């Protein structure tokens, strides 16, 4: 058995999600991503089941594995208890560990996720934080959010939040000792290593592209991967 397969098998999601696939296509029939993207989870499972390392490396470097929305509708329906969504999670993890994720447009977006929901989690203790959400980056939030965002403290008070306050409540300030514990968990369990690797590989790719790169979400490379869509991902 090859090294790539061995590493995939070390991932508990792979062990839980990959049994014998009978190639029936039920997962593809139920998959919301397969309706929208040029995506076929059945084929992903078949490729992985083949143990063909070249095919798997192609998946790790390609766009396909990033199309899944992890809704896990496939888990309910597979007649052999496979979960393509879990196999995708194992493939995405390995793609990042090996630095292959920056080879695809969709894979490169991991930096966006790391710099937003990832960093917000460690900084605030929440994966989303209202001050960071603007209609510039999230225009579908609509004029109601502009009103809310423009009166954030007053609206949060009206709605009963304890916004940035001490003690319990909605959007309270999470104590620094708790944020320290969260950080330490990420450190001990390899979460910070994953974050650092995403940064390192992304910076290298930005240099390859000749794009500016800094630690903010306002640089040429970040702007590029946040909006870039080559139009080749979709179903005809």
């Amino acid at each position, binding site marked *: 058995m090859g090294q790539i397969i061995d590493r995939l098998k070390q991932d*508990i999601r792979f062990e839980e999600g990959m049994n014998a696939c009978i190639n029936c296509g039920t997962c593809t029939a139920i998959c*919301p*991503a397969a309706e*929208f993207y040029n995506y076929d989870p059945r084929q992903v499972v078949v490729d992985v089941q083949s143990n063909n390392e070249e095919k798997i490396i192609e998946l790790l470097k390609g766009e396909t594995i990033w199309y899944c*929305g*992890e*809704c*896990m509708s496939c*888990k*309910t329906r597979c007649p052999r208890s496979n979960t393509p969504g879990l196999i995708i999670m194992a493939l995405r*993890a390995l793609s*990042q560990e090996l630095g292959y994720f920056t080879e695809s447009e*969709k894979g490169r*977006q*991991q930096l*966006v*996720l*790391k710099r*937003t*929901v*990832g960093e917000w*989690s460690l900084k605030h*203790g*929440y*994966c*989303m934080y*209202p001050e960071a*959400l603007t209609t510039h*980056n999230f225009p*579908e939030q609509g*004029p*109601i959010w*502009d009103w809310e965002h*423009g009166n954030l403290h*007053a609206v*949060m*008070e*009206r*709605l*009963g*939040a304890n916004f940035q306050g001490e003690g*319990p*409540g909605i*959007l*309270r300030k*999470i104590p620094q000792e*708790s944020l320290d*514990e*969260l950080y330490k*968990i*990420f450190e*001990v*369990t*390899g*979460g910070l290593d*994953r*974050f650092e690797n995403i940064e390192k590989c992304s910076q290298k790719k930005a240099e390859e592209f000749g794009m500016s790169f800094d630690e903010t979400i306002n640089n040429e490379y970040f702007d590029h*991967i*946040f*909006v870039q869509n080559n139009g080749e991902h979709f179903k005809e």
Partner: protein
Amino acid sequence: MKIEGKKRLWQDYQKEIATDNYFYARSCIRQNFFPASEKTFLRVMREELNKDVYEDPRHTTCSGIVYHSDLVTMDTTMTVIARQFSLMTESGRKNYVPSCITSFGLYTEVLEMWEHFPELETKAREMLWKATGREFEKPENVAHASDIIYKFRNEIASRGKFRLVNHRTGQPLRGVEHIGCHYSKMFPHKGVGGAEYPYVLVGMIEAFGGEVVDYPERRHCCGFGFRQYVVKANRGFSISSSRKKFESMAPYKPDFILTNCPGCPYFLDRWQYAISEMEGVTYGENGYGIPVLTYEELAGLVLGYDPWDLGLQTHQVSVEPLLEKMGIPYNPATKYLGAQGQDLGRPEKPSVLKVY
């Protein structure tokens, strides 16, 4: 089929829901976009039902969105969850109540995984100890906050001032429900009604006097998809999924959409606005949208809470058409006021979608 047989079959679709002494874990998304819903949940539990619900200010994100954005491994996520359980253990409670479906799915996944692979539970304990010096007990019961409202739906209905009934015609109002994928698609036996007949929201609508409308794309994902929404380049996936649902439900003319997950009401509300701007299409009556509610907002309306205390003024799709059908009074003049009555201005109106 004999009644006994039916009852036996249906037992497979039931779940145990604790009746008191809860440890409440808040939702990142619900706190951001539907903060008043969490306030309402606690108000209903404490003031209407006289239940013990404990909240520890030290709890954090469960890391679910980060996990499903593939930024961390299972090791990280299960240790963050172990820390949440440690806080529950300190509080003396054993009934864990998350306010988020992604969280609920993840807690369920981790607990099931620990059952199948006890060595991973041992590893989680070791990593938590190393990182924080904490220990924990596993919860005896994990129920999503909607499960609790479902459990006490008849008590809420009996205390209610309004019903899901058109007060002019006496006809039941028609609702579509959206269950949220991670509620029971992954672990059907952990959700009321399983994956085939999810009943948690249906039970509320029926208890409050309404009628549930079945429609072809009832179980389709709202399209959050984690990276498929957070990254701007991917949002075509997200809006297309919601659009598919709207197109499927609109012919049935629902009076409202009831949701379970904190993300789904956000998408089903905001994508109606975005579609109206992009395509000039609206799905409600007379150019309005279909009102979208969280289950806490619905319970609050039934109990006669002020719609603006419930945060309905922060929806992009106006909820007033539903309020008028239910006969619920509301004051337009106080809709956009602050807690001390200060004028906070008015949001701009969308260019296509009609709003009150």
